[in-house]
């Protein structure tokens, strides 16, 4: 027994070491962002001699970061809202209403799961060009609106709601839209939160599509925009780290506040395949 507990302590120490190493780049980025540029390149200090926030000041007021923030917020919140709304309605119909073509539609949505959206960028770009949506919020948003997995997860949850509930609501004279928005959606509020947060994080983090569809700096999202800072102002380490941290803040906060929901959403969306 003695030997076991020493083993356990060693294992705990090893775990802590690995975790610290894993998180070190994040710590290093944060520390660097709070140093004066001079200190960054002259010595290796793990805690800054003086805390200096000029890098943040520069990032916020001298670059286009504020504009990119607005673009990212508008596009990712819109994507989230629309994805949830159109998916939840479609899933409700698939789950609760018998209509011709229902199995076919569900089959198609399941199959779409396999299509890599990255392969579609050329034809999506051509389409957005036809719509006149290059360099617009609409152009960034539209191709991100189809997330088959959200429909699939909702359908599974609606399938498991007891049938009596819907029948009782029907007897009380409720239409299907009312049943969905007054009954089914509130019942599954947890899963809606989870799906919404993960959709928001994915939309905020989207790189390839926003990168292709925007070429003027004023229309870029944060994820794309921050790669332009070096080109515009040259390499400055503290400033780059401040920009990176500010860019990550909205998703990092969303995760830290809703950890359980993020985990739940990731499990559900991969569990489907299993």
């Amino acid at each position, binding site marked *: 027994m003695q030997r076991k507990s020493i083993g356990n302590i060693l294992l705990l120490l090893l775990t802590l070491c690995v975790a610290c190493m894993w998180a070190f780049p994040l710590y290093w980025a944060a520390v660097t962002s709070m140093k004066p540029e001079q200190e960054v390149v002259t010595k290796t200090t793990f805690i800054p001699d003086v805390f200096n926030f000029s890098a943040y000041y520069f990032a916020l007021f001298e670059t286009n970061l504020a504009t990119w923030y607005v673009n990212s917020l508008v596009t990712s919140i819109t994507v989230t809202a629309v994805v949830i709304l159109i998916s939840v309605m479609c899933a409700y119909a698939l789950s609760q209403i018998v209509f011709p073509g229902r199995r076919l539609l569900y089959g198609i949505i399941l199959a779409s799961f396999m299509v890599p959206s990255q392969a579609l960028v050329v034809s999506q770009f051509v*389409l957005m060009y036809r719509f006149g949506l290059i360099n617009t919020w609409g152009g960034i948003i539209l191709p991100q609106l189809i997330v088959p997995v959200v429909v699939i997860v909702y359908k599974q949850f609606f399938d498991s709601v007891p049938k009596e509930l819907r029948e009782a609501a029907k007897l009380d004279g409720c239409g299907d839209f009312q049943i969905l928005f007054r009954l089914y959606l509130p019942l599954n509020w947890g899963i809606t939160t989870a799906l919404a947060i993960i959709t928001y994080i994915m939309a905020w983090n989207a790189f390839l599509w926003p990168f292709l569809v925007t070429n003027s700096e004023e229309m870029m999202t944060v994820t794309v925009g921050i790669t332009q800072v070096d080109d515009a102002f040259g390499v400055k380490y503290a400033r780059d780290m401040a920009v990176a941290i500010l860019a990550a803040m909205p998703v990092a906060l969303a995760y830290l506040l809703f950890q359980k929901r993020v985990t739940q959403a990731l499990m559900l969306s991969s569990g489907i395949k299993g």
Partner: protein
Amino acid sequence: MTSERRSKTLTAVLMITPFVLTYLTVFAYPVYKMFALSFTNAPLIGEGEWIGFDNYLKLLNQKLFFTSVWNTGYFVVLTVIPNTLIGLGLALMVVRLKGWLQSLILVLFFLPYILPVSVVTQIWEWVLDQQFGIAQHVIEFVTGRRISVFRDPLWAMPMVALVTIWWTNGFNLLLFIAGLRNIPADYYEAAMLDGATRWQCFKRITWPLIWPVTALVLTLQLILQLKIFDQVYLMTEGGPFNSTYVLLQLVYREAFRLNHGGIGSAVAVFLFLIIVTVSVLQYQLLRVRGR
């Protein structure tokens, strides 16, 4: 009865219309268009003529195409299995912890996963910076010199893979932790009573019982890593000497840089077919397992 059915159908149609219309416009049509474009000599914007399989033949005569296929494969080899095993290893460590300590450690491992790719690459470009990067101390210790890792053909791809593993491992970790928690504790207790060692426990209980999760993670990783582009583009732009040029970047180059919408689409079709094939195989594999 018929009128009730009709009103049901009408409600259903109303409910699915927004999704179906969006689906047809921004998803189904682009899939069709991708195939259609790949048989034409169209520029990115504008009409082209039907040229049959010429684009595909052109690709077969293009060295960069084979380089991209090779590099994509190389990247897959460097990431898929290591990322899965590291995920399992970390999960085995984290799952033994209790309470707030476990939550804290889990956050440390998982946080990189939710960061935007450009934030990840900026952080690592700084960490690995040839002049001032803190990781250069390690590199110098091991190799005896400082290396500009993203400008060295030998180092570039493994380093991109390393950054990718750091970035995406949190997801694998989560799946493995969930899998490990599903293994009943009695199994271990019984084995311990019989005097089994830790290694025996792992080999006889954990590994076989976690295998379904391992298979899932492996296949998810395979599909994900085939689509590599963002990290490579941001850290090396495919260089040095095309040593990190990957398939999706060839799509980008042909379509958006050289204005060859047709050839770009042909590469996209190639990638599309590979990923759909892998996905179908995965689906079959997991379904067989499920039975």
